[in-house]
């Protein structure tokens, strides 16, 4: 049962996460510095420390902490003593939260925890790494959804729709202003709010659990991707969406270039797509090939060896390229009843 502890797989995923969290933590560090400059240093004004007041750093020490945090992120990004550097950066950030609970935000805390956790894994290693390390990062992602969904499930106001009804109500003037009057009765309906609340709770529970099973993983990732894109557009919660999407990297298959994509470069369009495709392949999913003789613009060979052309090929590309991933489910539904093999 504990055999997975000895399992080793490609370390690329962990390296990607190190880079992603180093960048995100660096951005958070900049934000904290900006707050000091534009608002005030929290230690000089009303704050609520979780540690004894005497442990709250002075303004100059806090600047030093932020400087070290930024340096740690930089070193982690360029894989120079990456693990201790990221560990120090995340630890300093967590200590900052303990010095002022007013600065506590779920998104910041989650980012700091993920960065801390990634620093504990062999995220600086090339080649193979123990798979349990990636699984722990995945567990951290799931834990957030689980805590959030259970909190909502056990809250009668949330479950009953009272919370979302008010939120939807806030949106009514916006839709009215844009002439979408038909939405007003829907957004103002307690029944709709109740149904939406149950759907939201179910979605978060599905995200917490669905990411762990092969059959539901792609759908859970797509749902999560869209969920966070929606949050980013509607609520813009600092770095939350980017943090969680970076966390999703823990759920991709670690083996690299097990699929192939071939572009017909006889045309300028094919040449451009081929170049663009290489850039989109952040997760190193494909062997990139070119041809001047193949009939279709693009041919994709999936892990099982099946070749796809036309819309199914684009579906396979969307599945593997994060920037195109929102298109995966629509393309999958579109191609459900179509033949999977190319005519060419």
């Amino acid at each position, binding site marked *: 049962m504990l055999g997975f502890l000895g399992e080793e797989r490609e370390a690329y995923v962990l390296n990607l996460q190190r880079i992603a969290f180093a960048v995100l933590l660096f951005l958070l560090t900049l934000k904290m510095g900006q707050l000091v400059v534009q*608002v*005030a240093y*929290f230690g000089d*004004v*009303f704050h*609520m420390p*979780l540690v004894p007041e005497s442990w709250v750093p002075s303004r100059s020490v806090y600047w030093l902490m932020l400087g070290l945090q930024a340096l740690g992120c930089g070193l982690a990004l360029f894989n120079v003593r990456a693990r201790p550097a990221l560990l120090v950066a995340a630890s300093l950030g967590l200590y900052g939260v303990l010095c002022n*609970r*007013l600065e*506590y935000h*779920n998104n910041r*805390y*989650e980012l700091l*925890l993920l960065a*801390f*956790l990634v620093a*504990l894994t062999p995220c600086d290693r090339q080649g193979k790494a123990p798979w349990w390390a990636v699984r*722990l990062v995945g*567990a*951290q992602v799931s*834990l*957030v959804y689980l*805590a*959030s969904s259970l*909190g*909502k499930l056990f*809250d009668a*106001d*949330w479950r009953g729709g*009272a*919370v*979302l*009804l*008010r*939120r939807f109500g*806030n949106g009514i003037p916006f839709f009215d202003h844009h002439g979408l009057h038909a939405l007003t009765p829907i957004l103002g309906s307690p029944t709709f709010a109740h149904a939406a609340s149950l759907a939201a709770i179910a979605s978060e529970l599905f995200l917490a659990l669905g990411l762990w099973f092969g059959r539901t993983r792609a759908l859970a990732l797509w749902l999560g991707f869209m969920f966070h894109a929606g949050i980013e557009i509607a*609520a813009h919660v600092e770095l939350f969406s980017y943090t969680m999407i970076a966390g999703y990297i823990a759920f991709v298959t670690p083996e690299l270039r097990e699929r192939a994509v071939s572009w017909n470069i006889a045309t300028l369009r094919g040449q451009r797509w081929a170049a663009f495709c290489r850039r989109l392949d952040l997760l190193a999913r494909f062997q990139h090939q070119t041809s001047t003789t193949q009939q279709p613009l693009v041919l994709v060979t999936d892990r099982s060896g099946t070749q796809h052309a036309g819309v199914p090929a684009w579906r396979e590309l969307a599945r593997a390229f994060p920037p195109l991933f929102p298109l995966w489910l629509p393309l999958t539904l579109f191609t459900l009843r179509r033949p999977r093999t190319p005519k060419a």
Partner: protein
Amino acid sequence: MLTFFGLELWGVAYGQRTPDHAFGFQMFNESSRLTIHLKREVKTKRGKALVPVDNGRWQAPDESGAQRQYRWQDRVTDVGVRTLDVSVHAAYGLDAQLFRLQAALDDVASHIPDDTRTLALVADVETLRNGVAGSVRLRAAKP
């Protein structure tokens, strides 16, 4: 790793019990609002009276009789509780903001030792918890 997740789960449990849900990952937990009306409790000839604090500013004499200026927002910079007389969204829920407001009142009350007139700071808060209206009064006496 066990320590890490053990501490985190402890944090999640702690977050369920604490008013601001710190470490509890309770996202978008309420659609509540609050309007804070700040007042000063001052000594009068007939006893005590509540004096509204407009825009968070007030004047009061110090021991020497010289008038000094005070401003709520000079010490309270947290977005949720610095805004007065205007309805604002209660981030992390109403309990979170009331918890922070009480701490802010205590903090400001302890930082105005030169104000010889103010006995206490009082916040009359109009609340709207998930659409249900209410009110609450918080008070912090000068130490």
